């Protein structure tokens, strides 16, 4: 189908203002929060699930790729239309359809902004737990696609633990609910496999999500350390002693310096690392828990421990953490954020290795991350104008991922694979592992029109993976059993 015809057909479905096709306007949709850039052929802005069905049918008829998009804040290239085609931006489907406090759930359209849901429910004593750093901009639909996390996922789990059911347009064009209204649905857990599938298995048109009662009480503690090793040992010790805080966040020296310079929060210039720990729950017991945590901090060499006395003080401590990314501009014009995960006890060794990578590649690396989950976010600082900087940064990034793998961890904790890390999938998964994932994908998306070129390494195509494996397996079996 010619591009002009595709545009015309989409305009029939969506009306003239529901289709973006002029080159200057398309430029906005060619990137997300990662490095890769590619222009879609056309952007569709549906307002109703039925329109999404029509768009998917059209994509099938025209055999063009179809790429869902939320707010475009993703950090792995998941929303980039690598092969062109129709990008379906879900931002106009942004209504909160039902807030059912009695059953502790909300029905939302995918374009609802993450923070808006919590803002709407807070006055009633409820909130939506997953709180990615981009929560002021990112959409629930995007969170579902990426299985997003955030600081408060330590005790409460990530997006997948808060999604109860999805209305989704399958690649076949069929519109189905994967579950609901009850929690249990017979059959394979389609909700569970669609969450985190990065737009390759369907387009979510409604999400039924869990609302959580606000805790009765909250305590926040900020501990300063001489270095990240002491702070990481503290993290392991807290978990090891049977305390799972609501959040446990770390900032290293570089980050603390930048935050102090930018916002004057009172960090001494030589502070080596800061841990921000939050516990919540019943009033009784919280003081005891925070006292135990404070003692663990001191036992692991904390030079100061401060417990926020008021809500304002709590907010001030959290602000220092939330402003960290903004403060990075003080250190360098650009940064590249990695997203690796390691078992919590491996944090000290991993951070030591990150420091070596920093020296080897002559790049400054700042660390601000979800320490309680073992989810690292090394920020590799650079200046695009420097000769070869981007390439060096990417190589250092891969080296850090390899370190995470060597430590028994993995290559993405909450940002997704997308385009950015698909080649590294081969570092953690065998051809057989990937073939099983390919079978899952093909069960939903046999024509590979939904967000193609994502997640799977490109060097070996899925079909090749399958064939190679089957041949070798067959030969091995025959040899083994003497046929």
């Amino acid at each position, binding site marked *: 189908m010619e591009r002009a015809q595709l545009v015309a057909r989409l305009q029939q479905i969506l009306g003239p203002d529901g289709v973006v096709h002029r080159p200057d306007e398309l430029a906005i949709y060619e990137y997300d929060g990662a490095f890769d850039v590619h222009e879609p052929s056309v952007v569709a802005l549906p307002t109703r699930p039925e329109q999404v069905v029509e768009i998917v049918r059209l994509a099938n008829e025209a055999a063009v790729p179809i790429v869902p998009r939320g707010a475009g804040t993703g950090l792995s290239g998941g929303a980039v239309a690598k092969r062109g085609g129709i990008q379906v931006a879900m931002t106009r489907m942004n209504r909160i359809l039902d807030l059912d406090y009695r059953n502790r759930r909300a029905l939302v359209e995918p374009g609802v902004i993450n923070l808006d849901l919590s803002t709407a429910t807070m006055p009633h004593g409820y909130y939506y737990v997953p709180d990615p750093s981009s929560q002021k901009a990112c959409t629930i639909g995007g969170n579902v696609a990426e299985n997003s996390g955030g600081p408060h996922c330590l005790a409460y*789990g990530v997006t997948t633990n808060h999604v109860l059911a999805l209305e989704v347009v399958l690649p076949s064009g069929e519109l189905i609910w994967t579950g609901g209204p009850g929690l249990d649905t017979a*059959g394979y857990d389609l909700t569970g496999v669609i969450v985190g599938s990065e737009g390759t298995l369907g387009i979510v048109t409604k999400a039924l999500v869990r609302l959580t009662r*606000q805790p009765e009480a909250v305590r926040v503690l900020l501990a300063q350390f001489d270095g990240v090793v002491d702070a990481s040992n503290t993290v392991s010790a807290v978990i090891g002693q049977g305390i799972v805080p609501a959040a446990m966040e770390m900032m290293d020296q570089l980050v603390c310096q930048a935050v102090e310079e930018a916002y004057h929060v009172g960090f001494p210039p030589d502070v080596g690392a800061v841990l921000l720990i939050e516990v919540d729950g019943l009033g009784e017991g919280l003081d005891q828990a925070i006292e135990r945590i404070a003692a663990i901090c001191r036992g692991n060499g904390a030079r100061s421990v401060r417990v926020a006395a008021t809500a304002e003080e709590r907010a001030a401590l959290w602000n220092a953490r939330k402003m960290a990314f903004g403060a990075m501009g003080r250190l360098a014009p650009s940064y590249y954020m990695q997203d690796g995960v390691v078992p919590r006890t491996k944090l000290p060794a991993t951070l030591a290795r990150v420091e070596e990578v920093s020296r080897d590649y002559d790049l400054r690396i700042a660390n601000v991350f979800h320490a309680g989950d073992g989810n690292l976010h090394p920020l590799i600082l650079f200046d695009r104008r420097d000769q070869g900087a981007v390439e060096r940064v990417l190589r250092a990034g891969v080296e850090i991922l390899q370190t995470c793998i060597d430590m028994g961890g993995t290559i*993405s904790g909450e940002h997704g*694979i997308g385009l950015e890390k698909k080649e590294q999938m081969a570092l953690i998964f065998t051809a057989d592992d990937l*073939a099983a994932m390919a*079978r*899952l994908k093909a069960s939903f998306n046999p024509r590979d029109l939904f967000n193609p070129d994502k997640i799977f390494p490109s060097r070996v195509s899925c079909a090749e993976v399958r064939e190679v494996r089957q041949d070798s397996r067959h030969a*091995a079996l025959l040899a083994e059993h003497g046929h």
Partner: protein
Amino acid sequence: MATEAQGAVAALQQQLVGAVGADWVYADERRGAYRVDDLTPGLVAAPGSAEEVAAALALANEAGAAVIPWGGGSAMALGYPPRAADLALDLRRLSQVLAYEPADLTLSVQAGVSFAALDAVLAAHGQRLALDCPRPSAATLGGLVAANLAGPRRYRYGTARDMLIGVRAAHPDGSLTRGGGMVVKNVSGYDMMKLYVGSLGTLAVIVELNFKLAPRPPAEGTAVLAFASLDAALAAAESLLASQLLPSAVVVLDSAVASGLGVLLPAAGPAGAALAARFEGLAVATERQARAVCERAVAWSAAEARMLPDDAAAAFWDGLLAFQALDVAPHNSALLKLSVLPTDLPVVMAGVAEVAGQVDLRCLQFADAGSGIIYLRVGQPEDSLPAVFAWALWALQTELVRRWGQSVVLSCPSVAKENLPLWGREPAGLVVMRELKARFDPGGILNPGRYVGRI
């Protein structure tokens, strides 16, 4: 024909001996322990490693032999009778804890480890897998996850899908694959764990599981309130769930279940009901919460309230879990599970009792009020004809499915399964589910016919 079939069994047996060793393949009377519905598998193999499981699956696949994956056998009542049962694959020799670092709060374990054995390992480090298991000594972790069983504490801690962070599975083509990993946060590739949880061994055989663990709470407290009616108990439950108290479980029991567990206080009267709330955590918090519930008794118009001593509380919760065990199947009885909106519980529990009464079924039920789950036992007297019971169960389940959709018969006599809509309303995604089955198990050898849509 018979000799041909016998010849095929003998050939497969010989190949299996080659793959898992002569000591671990049986075709003798020991097969009798692996009966599923009315079928006894012709062969049993007990592989000793993940690789041997994969090899056995590949051989069965080549032979077109139907495989029944077998853990502790305590949930074998679940699902339709298999279309065939040629080979039972006993996974209990996969009994190793592979990796356990307490300070990471994660663990990797082979699928054949029993829940009780794992719990003993974890208890030594003050940790646990926060999952309710009705038959801890028998149930294996692989089986528990494949059947996706859970109890009332799911309200606070979630179900297997919320705890499984990594998986290794054996496939009919002989491959072994991993998904996830040993970290608590992971978006690298598809969430294969979700695919296998609750899939009843119809897609692959789980051989290893990695779990996110939880600290074992230092204390717990249970409050029991008696009410004059189910509605009053359910209203109190809703009020409790809307508060900022943090129960790990809130259940509402009808008078029969409450009496059976010894918690229906006489003051409640014959049509009474009971509410039980379980709190886990620091002693100072659990005590306050259990007390707070009792203090609200008057406001909630409860007839009576009390806090259970620890041993009585443990016996009560164990008894309640036993109520939902699938392997307790007296003659002419069945266990069902409904999943509805918590606010619909009053209507549904009343409706269930009404429909059961109409078709002459004795009915006992309790609700996991926090999650909107009802467990229901129905039965007829021993001397009632099995066909009469089967008809009554069919009539009940058909009506429950018509009204509320998500009703599953977890356990019932094999003869009653024939035309029963056992899994409830057909899920909207059945087409995709069939695709998954066709691609993961193209030969259709894994638990054929037992699952949703007779997959």
